[in-house]
């Protein structure tokens, strides 16, 4: 009898180990599928041009070089005015500005939606969420026209405003979800202690919803960093254009140096990937808190 039980238990464990191994292998395959293009790009970026085109495609560079990275950061070319560095700087300004401003405005609005009652609140909130459904291409033309009238084309302010459109609804939604979870007692206590609304907000609410703030900043920065269409239309010279446009310009050169382009894409991708990876756990907690309501 005990031998029968032992064989059942060990086959169950064997079954579990088998399932674990299969899952592990599948996960490995999926990860390879997700990562190999970027790794291939990295391999290309480390090769000399002659090696990338002359020999059959291979993974490990025969004579690795950092020249591509250097030349793309410092040198220039026909359509690619200045260097990638300037486009990179523009991206930093635009992404930081968009995410920080969206956060500040968003936190005020989220607090208002969460804690206060007023007429039309539900409709307004729903409207804000639904505004994300508007395709960028639809807004493209009128935004260009309106911005042209206001002399906002080809300015940092213009691009930051355009990015805020994409970021703000999501920021409000996520921050509100998190603020909803702050217990009433804490807020009432702060009010009794004589805190003004803003004071309550800053001193009590902000520390509690720190993960959601991190997630909002991360989302906003990444979204603005990766944005392409608005930047394509609302900016037209190297003083303002972000790195996504810079890459496209480098691509359009009539004699594309793919090794340089590969180096440029790696450089352009690093900030958003780094920030995303570091802060992604905040996104998890921010989103689930928002969904719990």
């Amino acid at each position: 009898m005990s031998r029968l039980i032992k064989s059942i238990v060990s086959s169950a464990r064997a079954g579990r180990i088998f399932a674990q191994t299969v899952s592990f292998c599948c996960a490995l395959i999926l990860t390879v599928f997700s990562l190999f293009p970027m790794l291939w790009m990295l391999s290309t970026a480390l090769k000399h041009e002659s090696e990338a085109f002359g020999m059959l495609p291979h993974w490990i560079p025969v004579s690795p070089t950092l020249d591509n990275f250097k030349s793309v950061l410092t040198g220039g070319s026909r359509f690619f005015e200045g260097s990638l560095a300037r486009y990179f700087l523009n991206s930093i300004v635009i992404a930081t500005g968009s995410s920080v401003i969206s956060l500040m405005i968003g936190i005020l609005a989220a607090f208002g939606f969460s804690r206060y009652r007023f007429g039309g609140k539900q409709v307004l909130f729903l409207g804000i969420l639904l505004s994300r459904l508007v395709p960028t291409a639809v807004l493209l033309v009128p935004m260009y026209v309106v911005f042209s009238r206001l002399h906002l084309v080809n300015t940092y302010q213009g691009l930051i405003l355009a990015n805020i459109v994409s970021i703000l609804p999501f920021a409000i939604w996520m921050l509100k979800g998190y603020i909803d979870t702050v217990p009433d007692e804490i807020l009432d206590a702060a009010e009794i202690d004589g805190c003004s609304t803003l004071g309550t907000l800053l001193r009590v609410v902000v520390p509690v919803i720190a993960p959601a703030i991190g997630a909002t900043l991360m989302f906003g920065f990444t979204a603005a960093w990766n944005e392409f269409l608005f930047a394509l239309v609302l900016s037209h010279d190297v003083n303002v254009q972000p790195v996504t446009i810079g890459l496209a310009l480098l691509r359009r050169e009539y004699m594309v140096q793919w090794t340089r382009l590969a180096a440029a894409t790696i450089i352009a991708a690093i900030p958003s990937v780094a920030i995303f990876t570091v802060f992604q756990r905040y996104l998890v907690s921010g989103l689930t808190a928002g969904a719990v309501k």
Partner: protein
Amino acid sequence: MQMNATQKRRWDRLRRVLTGPILVAPGTLMLAGLILYPFCQLVLISSGDLTPDFSVQGPFGLHNYARILQLGLLGRVALNTAVWTVGTVALQTILGLLSALVLNQRFPGRSVFRTLIFVPFAVPVVVSAMTWEWMLRGEVGIINVTLSQFGLEGRPWLTLTNTAMPALIVTNSWFMYPFVMFALLAAMQAVPAELYEAAEVDGANAWQRFLNITLPGIRPSMGLVMLLMTIWSLNAFSVIYIMTEGGPGIATEILGLTVFRQAFRYVNFESASALAVIMLIVQMIFAATYARFLLKEQ
């Protein structure tokens, strides 16, 4: 400022009533100014005429709409948009579901895999598009080379009419499916473990457990995610613009690209606006139908 009791009460009431709207005002005004106002301008421009200094004037009518419909390429573009949307949402959902199922199992290192799989989603779309374009190139592309090593024929994927759209769909799904995986994984982990245990006791195998417990459990999330993916793919621009620019010919041109091209290549803002309005109406009808279908399910 000294107030008597009545004044103070009134001031407190005023504060309570006004604080909410005041907090919400900056965000609302900003979005209204950046979305509603341009939208009104869009409708105006689409039915009128745009002067060189960007003001709208009459005559107002449907002539721009007629012109756009007369162009004759709308049929092909609409078909492309439908193929693109259906194809990419389907592939993303399949990949997302599969990977969520895999990552829902417990095995060592699964959180590492989860983070790594998510990387493509964080990369700028432009970078992903260029990476895949580089891989899909005729002779030097790694994909063709690998295929030939297995004895299969390589192709100039992005310049052949039949293979361009599938290639774009694969590229788009490659960096979008992690989001689906993420959402479905969260939904799966919310399914109570007792349901699975009870089913196992009843003798259900893995496939039956999946069909009768997992799928119904994640249905609401899946519906929502698919709606979001559909809207995002209708919105897609960079991938196609970078990789094929709508080509070869107009084999991969979708609605958004046509709007862009009309406005900023042919400098025909009025026709572009008309097309944009049509695009918005189509999308809203679609989203409303989908949403009603979703709500009915629940």
